[in-house]
């Protein structure tokens, strides 16, 4: 049942995981990389190798194109690469339980680097479970991996850099936009500008963002500002979209596809499974792992890099990945402490530059309050179909925390294991009980991280018996 041992097991082959792998392997560590996807790239550079050879590369933008050389370097770095491998449990020690092609295996490693990235923040509103409602990130993945765009002019709702980038890419690909429902609340730009002095270190990115915005405004599709409420309606699929703005204006329009996005949050399931401490990040409205200056978590030899360490964007991924590799190389005597420190100074400078724009972006694109306070009829737990109203009425019977609410309502018990309802449940409890979200806490994460089959789990025992 043991699929092999390595010095380092890296989970995730996105920008951070690949940088960590290239660096760690280069420093002489044995490295294994497991990843959900069929090819390296993570979400940022999803499908990069396939797209690299096609004319589509140009219209997906320069930042995407940077992934070509990274994936190529990763392929030849000497790390054992296991694509299409689902990590379903990781136990201290470390033992990683992985399924690939329907077969379960256990990999052991001395250290673990979690480069499991981020997911889009769940945005519950009435009708968000209807076919036709997707995340903007999902649409971008469809564009990158399947060269696929919405059939008709598409509605996009939300805030943050991703909708702007996707709309730019979509237009370049020949798609069309029905309208953009900008959910950025009033006054955010003013608040965000307080962070401008720091952000000036990343002037280029600021200019790029503004140029996207201007180019989009010239396209002539409606841009509705300060949207606060959304509602999707339809018989079996999205047919109609209603919205309301802060000043009470609203409309109801026909729609086939609605793309939503309200920022991204770190994937914390794997760190929690390993017992790593997390803390509430006020600025990013999510939990982030507690890490030292090398990216090491509260559990020794567990490192967390990339957006899973806290949202830092693409440029922060690679320095974080390399810092973890440097620390491990020094610890495993492949590199002197002084040499690791010297190399780390360079990476930390790059990281600090990469994060310079973050406070401004976090403030500008902080989720609107309605994201966390959906109307009573909204399905908060998509899997078990638990509404906000049910959660609210339970929330005031005693002072239940997320785990009790889960036991009584089954919210968070479905296949997504709370990935789509965890934050909403915490906010609903906090509001109903007049507590802080941090005080309310988060679901206890119960293994497995991914729904392995009974047969796959049983095969581990069968392999052991046969051995």
């Amino acid at each position, binding site marked *: 049942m043991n699929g092999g041992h390595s010095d380092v097991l890296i989970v995730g082959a996105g920008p951070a995981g690949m940088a960590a792998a290239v660096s760690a392997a280069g420093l002489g560590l044995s490295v294994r990389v497991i990843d959900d996807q069929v090819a390296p790239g993570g979400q940022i550079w999803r499908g990069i190798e396939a797209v690299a050879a096609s004319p589509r590369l140009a219209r997906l933008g320069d930042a995407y194109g940077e992934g070509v050389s990274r994936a190529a370097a990763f392929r030849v770095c000497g790390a054992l690469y296991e694509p299409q491998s689902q990590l379903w449990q990781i136990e201290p020690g470390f*033992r990683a339980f992985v399924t690939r092609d329907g077969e379960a295996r256990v990999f052991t490693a001395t250290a673990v680097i979690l480069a499991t990235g981020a997911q889009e923040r769940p945005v519950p509103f009435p009708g968000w479970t209807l076919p036709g409602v997707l995340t903007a990130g999902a649409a971008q993945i469809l564009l990158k991996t399947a060269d696929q765009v919405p059939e008709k002019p598409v509605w996009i709702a939300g805030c943050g850099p991703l909708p702007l980038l996707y709309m730019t890419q979509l237009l370049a690909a020949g798609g069309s936009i029905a309208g953009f429902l900008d959910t950025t609340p009033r006054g955010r730009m003013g608040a965000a500008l307080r962070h401008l002095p720091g952000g000036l270190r990343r002037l280029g990115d600021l200019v790029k963002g503004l140029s996207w915005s201007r180019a989009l405004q010239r396209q002539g599709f409606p841009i509705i500002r300060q949207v606060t409420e959304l509602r999707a309606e339809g018989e079996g699929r999205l047919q109609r979209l209603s919205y309301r703005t802060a000043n009470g204006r609203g409309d109801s329009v026909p729609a086939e596809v609605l793309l939503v996005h309200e920022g991204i949050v770190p994937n914390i399931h794997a760190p929690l499974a390993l017992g790593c401490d997390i803390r509430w990040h006020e600025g990013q409205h999510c939990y982030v792992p507690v890490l030292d200056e090398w990216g090491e978590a509260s559990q020794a030899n567990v490192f967390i890099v990339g957006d899973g360490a806290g949202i830092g964007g693409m440029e922060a991924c690679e320095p974080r990945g390399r810092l973890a590799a440097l620390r491990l190389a020094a610890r495993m005597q492949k590199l002197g402490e002084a040499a690791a420190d010297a190399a780390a100074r360079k990476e930390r400078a790059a990281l600090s530059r990469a994060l310079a724009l973050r406070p401004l972006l976090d403030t500008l694109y902080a989720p609107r309050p309605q994201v966390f306070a959906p109307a009573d009829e909204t399905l908060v737990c998509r899997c078990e179909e638990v509404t906000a109203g049910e959660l609210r009425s339970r929330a005031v019977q005693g002072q239940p925390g997320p785990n009790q609410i889960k036991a009584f309502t089954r919210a968070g018990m479905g296949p997504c*294991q709370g990935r789509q309802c965890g934050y909403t449940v915490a906010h609903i409890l906090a509001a109903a009980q007049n507590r802080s979200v941090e005080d309310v806490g988060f679901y206890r994460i119960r293994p497995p991280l991914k729904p392995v089959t*009974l047969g796959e789990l049983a095969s581990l025992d069968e392999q052991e018996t046969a051995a």
Partner: protein
Amino acid sequence: MNREGFDVAVIGGGLHGLSAALHLARAGSRTVVIERHWTGRHASGATAAGVRTLNRDIAEIPISLEAMEMWHRMASIVGDDCGFKAHGQMRVAEREEHMPALLQREARVRALGYTHEEMIDAAELRRLVPALSPHCLGALISRQDGAADPHRTIAAFRRACEREGVTIAEGCGVTSAERRDGDWHLSCGSRRFTASAVVNAAGAWAARVAALFGDEIELGLRASMMIATERVAPLLKPVVSVVGRALSFKQSDQGTLVIGGGLQGSAQLDRARSSVHFSVLAKGAKAASDLFPVVRGARIARCWTGIEAQTRDHLPVIGVSPNAAGLFHTFGYSGHGFQLVPVVGAIVADLVTEGRTSRAIGAFAPERLMQGRAAA
């Protein structure tokens, strides 16, 4: 210092604590349940909720049969049937060599005058559980047994307690106990409780609580692992266990397959945490898929463990403390306490309010685990 005065303080808000409190309140006692986290946080919230008289220790049979009678009228006790369904529990023999043990068990309980356990042959087994692998040969069955919904049960007992005026103090861990003027004075952080009687229903932590009162009781730990799958279409109704393997298999009302059977994870009492070990749990998945080949493709939604106390003879501790006046113990259910919840609550209420009970509880006396300790 604000002191909250009661007749009885129950330490531990699991099902046994809640049941004791409910029966005490009905007997007229002003009762508080003092719970360190929240009601049902540990073993009660992690149980498979089997309602089983089948294959119990002979000493437990009388109270288990009485409990079963109570389960069949649970709505009249707590205002909800707790999701109890009496589809039977059975213990299956996979091989010829497993049959004699089941037949002997049947003969033994019959000789004692009990009729709740009976042998069934392969044909009856197939009729009751068509999804079972055809290699199974027969089973010992208790048809009145079944299973309930654990969270619904916790909620129902808690609500019943509240209706009877029981105070439930959550987030309240008892850190010291002192006997003054015929009352126990309990400290829990900033809160103080006084009560003339105390019930120790602290589950895995019961030996630590007992020690606060001067009772040294030998107590082990269990961290039984459980698997729940995705929802699947109806597959079976009874609860199935098997001779020679750690497996208990049932389907919940929601359609999830719930697999337990006592495979052990690890528990840390100080951190109140327990962990699943998948290489061990693989044996449970193997047993489940051997007995029910169709489940190999079912997806595991979650696995968990609950921490619970285990005595060396696997019998609970139910009785009056031999050392500490006004202290009563109810813990050490070793993985099979769920079914006993209603009757033990009544027993504890008898002991506290009348000083005696008509039920046979001699085998559960705390002394049996205290003498060994003193001698060691």
